[in-house]
């Protein structure tokens, strides 16, 4: 059985734009940290897509077709991006979401 996460990838998902904009735009990133809902309001996300982001439900996002590389980056945008701290927290929460569905808020 293939272990490829890319088989269900759907390039049309809007969450990809959100992640790419966030990593390219520090001002948007700051706003996302302060008021995530206001940023999400500006993207035409499907209701289930938005709900999965809000619930930190990466399993659902991946099943919908989110690219896992950008999923990893979304986790760092949420939980932290520094090598020795936030990024480790992000990886642990991402893996927990994909395997057990349990993550930090």
């Amino acid at each position: 059985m293939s272990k490829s996460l890319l088989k269900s990838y759907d390039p049309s998902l809007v969450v990809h734009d959100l992640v790419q904009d966030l990593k390219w735009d520090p001002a948007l990133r700051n706003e996302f940290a302060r008021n995530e809902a206001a940023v999400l309001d500006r993207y035409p996300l499907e209701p289930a897509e938005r709900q999965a982001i809000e619930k930190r439900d990466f399993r659902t996002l991946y099943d919908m077709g989110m690219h896992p590389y950008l999923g990893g980056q979304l986790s760092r945008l949420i939980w932290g991006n520094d090598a020795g701290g936030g990024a480790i927290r992000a990886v642990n929460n991402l893996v927990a979401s994909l395997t057990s569905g349990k993550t930090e808020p």
Partner: protein
Amino acid sequence: MGDIVFAGGIPHLPAMVGLYDRAPPDVQAIVRNSYEALHTEIKAAKPDAIIVFANDHLVNSRIRSYPDFLIGMASEHRGPHEWFKPWIGCRDYAIKGDQRTAAALFRGMIRRGIRMFAETGPLKFDDNISVPVTMGELDKLGIPLVPVLQNCTVPPIPEQHRCYEVGQALGDIIRNDLPPGMRVALIGSGGLSHEPGGSRYYVIDEEFDRWFLELVTSGDHDRMLKELTFDRMEASGSGGTVELFAWVVIVGAIGPRPGRSFGYANFRDFRCGFGAVIWDLSKQGMDKREREPA
């Protein structure tokens, strides 16, 4: 009428920089020795330019309009890009570009029927270029660099046969399109096994990594092209290991030659296997392959 005077493959795992101090001494030694060899042997080869093929990692283009190969044509390259600085933990750098060589590469690929894209402005670099440049201190050599960012991420991905063809064209361009006497170093940046963003984020496939290092140091390209498939790499770490196709471009450019490995390191916190190879470009290296056919 140019010459390839150096060819190597080396990983760019970001955690290796930020978490280097947490690694055991034997792992640190393999990483350190590999990057020192990269620096020392490139310096000794006296190239006029370094061309690096590396995974773009969805950094420079939208996912819906994604180029398979993007050549950096700027006069200077700086990195890492702002968002990646804390994640990688490396120092800032600036390295000269080589606009003439980048243009010759772009022109040569198009004329050989290989679609590439090129950017004259600054490209954004994450670990792909930043780690080899800073860990190998390539910016301190005073040699200009031409980055070629490759699609190893967005399906459909150029697989081993296509990457090998691109490498063959690269070699042909260096030999026939570049100025007489021009010396070029080639680096494939990426790997080894890893699954960034997946449930196996912490899983390193040591069996695959050791098999891969044996394969690419053997110089047996028939076997490499048969066995180093997209599916094989995805099984060892989805969405990450396939960036080893950047190494396939480099070996396509130099042809079947043996290589030297500098050891293998498997440290869980790096979330990626580590091993580097430098290929033997001497006449003896070619002769050895001819004596030991697959």
